[in-house]
């Protein structure tokens, strides 16, 4: 069934984005710069892991090969993960984590707003539930981008550096290939028209308030959506998959 193969791929991408970013954010737990922020980061991680669970479970159903969310999360090879390169980038300092999350939240909010209109009931329901969380994340990360950008000279320089380093990964947020066009043609996903423009608007207005400068270098670094990753993903998977690989076929 074509529809299921394409929708599987589409849902898998989103599931992988949530999974890998949720994992990255979870690395902060217990090490945050302020106790309150430790709690806030963990909340975001929990939301993302929750989304990953819903999305990957659904992907498993669509695939119809008996793989559940855990099998997809823990038992694939690196080339089979379809997440954005942005989300697998290392945490760096708190500012880099926030900038990465901000870029992602702005994209995710716009994506979920559109996917609520999907004719696929399950996808629409997941988008609806996830949108509420994502709006909250975006508010939180926007506030921090502004605080750090317009805080001290040190914080300004640090977060500007993170912005510069991460910018090249943002083009991939708008990746689309034949999977997207077939789902659109079949009326399963709505048009994503204007998503990139809306994203640019959100991002530039926050960055302006934060007194930060958008890099003029527009070099694009893509590959995650087709399973070609940076060196960071392999290490992340080695850690994340450790138990499932070392003790196969057991219940935990």
């Amino acid at each position, binding site marked *: 069934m074509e529809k299921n193969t394409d929708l599987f791929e589409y849902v898998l991408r989103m599931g992988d984005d949530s999974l890998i970013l949720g994992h990255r954010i979870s690395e902060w737990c217990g090490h945050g710069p302020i106790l309150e922020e430790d709690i806030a980061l963990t909340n975001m991680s929990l939301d993302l*892991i929750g989304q990953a669970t819903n999305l990957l479970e659904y992907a498993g159903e669509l695939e119809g090969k008996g793989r559940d969310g855990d099998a997809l999360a823990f038992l694939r090879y690196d080339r089979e993960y379809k997440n954005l390169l942005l989300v697998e980038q290392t945490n760096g300092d708190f500012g880099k984590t926030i900038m990465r999350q901000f870029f992602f939240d702005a994209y995710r909010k716009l994506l979920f707003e559109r996917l609520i209109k999907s004719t696929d009931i399950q996808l629409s329901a997941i988008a609806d539930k996830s949108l509420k969380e994502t709006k909250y994340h975006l508010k939180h990360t926007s506030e921090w981008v502004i605080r750090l950008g317009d805080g001290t000279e040190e914080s300004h320089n640090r977060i500007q550096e993170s912005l510069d380093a991460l910018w090249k990964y943002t083009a991939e947020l708008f990746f689309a290939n034949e999977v997207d066009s077939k789902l659109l043609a079949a009326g399963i996903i709505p048009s994503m028209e204007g998503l990139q423009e809306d994203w640019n608007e959100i991002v530039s207005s926050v960055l302006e308030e934060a007194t930060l400068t958008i890099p003029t270098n527009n070099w694009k670094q893509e590959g995650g959506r087709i399973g070609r990753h940076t060196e960071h993903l392999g290490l992340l998977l080695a850690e994340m998959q450790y138990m499932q690989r070392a003790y196969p076929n057991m219940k935990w």
Partner: protein
Amino acid sequence: MKEVTISELERRFQEKIDNDIKIEPKDWMPEEYRQTLIRQISQHAHSEIVGMLPEGNWITRAPNLRRKAVLLAKVQDEAGHGLYLYSAVETLGADREATIDDLHTGKAKYSSIFNYPTTSWADMGTIGWLVDGAAIMNQVPICRCSYGPYARAMVRVCKEESFHQRQGFEIISLLAQGTPEQKAMAQDSLNRFWWPSLMMFGPNDAESKHTAQSMKWKIKRSTNDELRQLFIDVTVPQAEMIGLTIPDKDLKFNEETGHYESGPINWDEFWEVVKGNGPCNKERVDARKKAKDEGAWVREAAMAYAEKRKERSAIRA
């Protein structure tokens, strides 16, 4: 207004305590009572925060999505406990940051159990089952502590701790009934954590220098040995139920008293760990210091930004 002598204030204070009337932040209290509470509550707060580390160690290696979420939520709860408790310390006039600095310099202590390493996934079960389990036994009596803010914080904390205890027991039961590898992992974990868990109740009553005064002030409501005995009596049958062996060859049930009698605790080990010679003391404190040092620029930025906003709105007004 008539001058009231200190001894009269002390008499009224003790009378309130004897009548189970809570002491509130604005009430008069003896300086020693205040200091004892600051020491005890901040030690408790530090334990919650340092306690995030051994379990945090397994978040990125949790075996499935559900366990990952549950563990994250659990460690986050501990952060929340730390927050309420730091707030309770502040009601006594202590400064949160200064209190945390005492942890970093080694002046303030935290529960020694967190100086033991978590080397397997089974430790996530054992810690919930035994460590949160022991924490509950220590903390339930504190819900009736004479100091209001501490007692109230404990009511909320204890509800969450019992949730943690059940989740931990669920993890360890599953392993104990799982494959031979899982069973071995569970038993090894119990072997490592059993004795340190018994030490969580503190030195024997005869050795405990604070107990008598704290009992009189109703800061402490049961002695270390009473609580330890309660813990043993509850936990040993649980271990038997899931087929694990308590690593104590002298352990026996006394039909007459209805209590389990355990072998001797290695108090030398306990005092060494308290002094800083446990397997992970340095790692734990270093991790907390690192979080604070590396977060300094973030806190400074937040303050600078808040200041700028205040100035800007003052100009606009």
